[in-house]
């Protein structure tokens, strides 16, 4: 098992990460920005479904029916934002909570 040195106190929850600050290697604004990105991704998923369309025959965008092209555009944007969100995600090697270990 690759247990890493523990440079922070407590937990699987949020408090430990707040205390850790620089220990995570990510700037302070990373967490709120990540949340915003995840919210935008959720909205893009909803926008990818053609709820907004009337009965008019579809126009063409890049040779595809417009609602198909818009869905692809939403997914492409969501993919970029999701990659950014992952790079802003802190995945510590340990919860750092020795007392919490089970026997």
């Amino acid at each position, binding site marked *: 098992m690759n247990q890493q040195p523990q440079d922070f106190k*407590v*937990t699987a929850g949020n408090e430990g990460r707040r205390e850790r600050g620089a220990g995570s290697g990510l700037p302070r604004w990373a967490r709120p920005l990540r949340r915003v990105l995840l919210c935008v991704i959720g909205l893009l998923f909803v926008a990818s479904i053609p709820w907004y369309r009337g009965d008019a025959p579809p126009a063409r965008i890049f040779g595809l029916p417009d609602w198909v092209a818009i869905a692809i555009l939403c997914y492409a944007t969501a993919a970029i934002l999701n*990659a950014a969100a*992952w790079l802003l995600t802190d995945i510590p*090697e340990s919860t750092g909570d020795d007392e919490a270990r089970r026997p």
Partner: protein
Amino acid sequence: MTFEWLGVVGLVTYLVLLIGIAFAARRARQDESPADHFLAGRGLGVFVLFLTLYATAYSGNSLLGYPGQAYRQGFSWVMATGFMLSIIVVFHALAPKLRPIAVRESFVTPGDWVRFRFSGESGSRALLLGVSLLMAIALANFLFAQLKAMGELAEQFTGGVIPYEWGVVLLAGMILFYETVGGMRAVAWTDALQGVLMLVGLGALLRWLLADSGGLELLTNQILEVRPGAADLPDAREQINWLSTIVLMGLASVVYPQAIQRIYAARSGRVLRRSLALMSFMPLATTLVVTLIGLAAIARFQGLGDVEADRVMPLLLGEWAREGLGFSIAAMIVFMGALAAIMSTADSVLLSLGSVAAEDLFGRSHREAGTTRFGKRIAAVLMVGMAFLAIGARDVTLWGVIELKMELLIQCVPAFLIAIHWSRFRARPACFGLAFGVGIVILGLVLDSKRIFGVHIGVIGLAGNIAIACIGSLLRSPGSPSQRALHLP
């Protein structure tokens, strides 16, 4: 040399390569422990982890089932790109919290999390068995789909020189061999090779299809000439189904045992997050590409039945190969890529199935020396059983098999996603919720009512499952042993 014999030569070359990788992985092993066999000693780096995640996530379903479904459904199958992306998004809710606990507690199977999280609670054993059983059923179902797809491809690409049945037996035997010899390390290394083949092959096929059709605009025109309804706007029910499919696939895929085990197997948290960041682009590079391939098939092959539609990819490759020797070789690379995708998923599924059955269902500890051998034996027995089933039940659509698996697997979501975020979540209510969700799915299957107003029966079952589990947990007193151990907020 004909394309059929080129197929045989390509297949044999590929299998010899896999044997070499298996022996190399065996030489690289550190010990005989389950952690080394099932998780490659928890040492996968960014490149291998990314490619193994990719090759495992994109399977026979993606390479044969999704083009087939695009052929049947038309342009609205663009939803597949969305639901494959949703998997990587939903991982945000699980991986960052599960990974550090898994490292600290040396988890090997998904059941290790359930065992740890609900330790000391009444109902924890029943919950572990329920979750593990559902995972084992989903994995067996998944394995069946891969074996079926492997047999189809082998027959198509060797022009019947290797018939479907022999294709299933030969390739299943090969997977069993390299997995038994090399474990997760062999699986991950072969996945890396298979992932590269898949990417290169699909890109080449799409390029040919677009060039041959004169571009996207003309391709769309050709599709609409043959089937004017293919670009029809989805009606309200289909739109609800679109959203329901994103929810179903996003949530259920996150609790795939082989996906969870890759969270455990990463060398570090940084490696995991970089691999998942790269995975964000794979739905565009793969699912969207196979969707366009399936759509292109509408213009080329008319009147294929439901089951035959799953063969549009091999049919397209056959047509491509007839254009000349250079095209035959390119088609062969795609064939290898498709076969690689299927085998890479099958091997990961088999590895997970062996570990889940040995540890979570039969109660073997991953600290026992004989567990690895026991897991290998179970995997072998299951592989033989599934191979017979794949030979006997050829006429099933791949998408139908996927949906059934997801409807059941999604019922495990509360035991992972809610339990990891909410410390008051309890085993007994979770157990009742799980039973309710599975009951709803079975009822839906019995009544042949898989969707209600476009919503999957599994998603409806999950809503009831979550309601029962959460209300039940609120009604019980706070302060369980697991809450103290986890220090969850």
